[in-house]
């Protein structure tokens, strides 16, 4: 489905990722784990096209999309939820969703489906996103990504900095989405338990290199924790 193949990428002259290979199979969840500064967010930014690799390739269903702009990748079925509960702060909740639905054939239905996953957003439809709590904004961010009816969803630390009650809700939604089929997920997460519960495949990233990888599941959780505790 998504192949990140031998990608080197960085900011200005410093290289952050040194030839990283990550693969997300069709209808599967792949988790990328690692400490702060390991290059996890950089990997997702390169996958979605916000950063252009110095070398290597990004392929979606076999098509080389390395030089494609982010909006062209979205049109090909990729959606991205960045770190930090990002929304358009001066647009209302409804406008944040409508913006993405504009011009799409099933826009209305896609918004309704996304709101079914996060019903709390229905009561906040006229509130500006900048006035929502962190948890509400993250729900909106995921809903906005889902309105594009993606085939692959890139999630950058979706539960970071959110109150525990909402974290559980977001985790359950991500697990439900993954279980529903028709959607692949590349999940960057520091919460190892959740990531390993969700993922069929995992990658541990350290200082811009994949240092261990394997099949996901709770059996692998211990070895991931050991790898991260070093």
């Amino acid at each position, binding site marked *: 489905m998504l192949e990140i193949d031998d990608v080197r990428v960085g900011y200005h002259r410093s290289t952050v990722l040194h030839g990283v290979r990550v693969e997300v199979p069709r209808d599967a969840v792949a988790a990328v784990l690692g400490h702060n500064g390991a290059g996890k967010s950089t990997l997702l930014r390169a996958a979605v096209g*916000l950063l252009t690799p110095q070398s290597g390739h990004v392929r979606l269903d076999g098509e080389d999309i390395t030089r494609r702009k982010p909006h062209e990748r*979205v*049109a090909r079925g990729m959606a991205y939820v960045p770190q930090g*509960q990002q*929304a*358009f702060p001066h647009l209302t909740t409804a406008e944040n969703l409508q913006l993405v639905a504009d011009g799409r054939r099933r826009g209305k239905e896609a918004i309704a489906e996304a709101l079914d996953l996060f019903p709390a957003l229905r009561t906040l439809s006229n509130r*500006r996103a*900048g006035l*929502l709590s962190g948890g509400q904004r993250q729900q909106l961010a995921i809903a906005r990504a889902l309105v*594009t009816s993606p085939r692959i969803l890139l999630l950058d630390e979706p539960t970071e900095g959110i109150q525990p009650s909402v974290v559980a809700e977001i985790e359950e939604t991500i697990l439900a989405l993954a279980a529903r089929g028709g959607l692949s997920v590349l999940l960057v997460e520091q919460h190892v338990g959740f990531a390993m519960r969700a993922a069929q495949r995992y990658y541990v990233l350290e200082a811009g290199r994949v240092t261990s990888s394997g099949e996901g599941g709770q059996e692998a959780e211990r070895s991931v924790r050991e790898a991260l505790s070093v």
Partner: protein
Amino acid sequence: MTVILGQMFTGVSIGAVLLLIALGLSLTFGQMNVINMAHGEFIMAGAYTTYVLQKSIAGAGLSLIVALPVAFLVSGALGALLEWLLIRRLYLRPLDTLLVTWGVSLMLQQLARDIFGAPNVQTRAPDVLTGNITVIGGDDPLTFASSRLFILGLAVAAVVALSLTLRLTPLGRRIRAVVQNRDLAEVSGISTGRVDLTAFFIGSGLAGIAGVALTLVGPIGPTMGTNVIIDAFLVIVVGGIGQLKGSVIVAFVLGVLQSVLEYSTTVSVAKVLVLVAIVAFLQWRPQGLYTVRTRSLV
């Protein structure tokens, strides 16, 4: 009483002109943060478009009506070309943008001199806009210039159209989204390059409409845009950058202030006093009249 009402109307009509010249800038500078020093020359292009059309179309009224959409298209196309050729390579480099667009403004002024000559030219206002409308008759009548009323109506129509476009249309949502978070807009599936181009087209097109309006109250010349561009920037900055509501209020307040001060002093002293008032206001409220409150900076 009629004197006060007359001065108020003059102030409102000055405000309407200010608003029209600032409106396009409220999109390109206020929303997109591009300091386009050539914006005044797009106003000039709109004014010369009116002049050319009046030469080719017999009736002054018909040529004015035709000039409004044509000037919008001509100035809009110039703006879109500038964005496509130069400005999109200079986003996040405000000083370079300022210098480059200033250079473009000088080139456009020279181009106008080469085509139309250095002296100012004049258009003929349609008969319906040449007289006065008497509001209060009698010994001390109150009259409003019909051309000023037309400009006021044009300014109100332009503000309503721009406001509705930004609020209610998919294009408006996209423009606001790109302004607020360019990367997030791009990864939400919005072609930010296309949005920039369209926004620049509309903002520059509005400058063209302002140019048409200015032909009713003054001569057309190569430097007419330079003469008004600073006032337009002042309206945007004092109103609060990105705040259309602020620009509208400030344009009319400055217009009325200018008119009242001109009545009690002279034109030059009034201008100085208005500028002093603006400096004092910005010392007190550097962010301008309106800002938007959010819970976070994202």
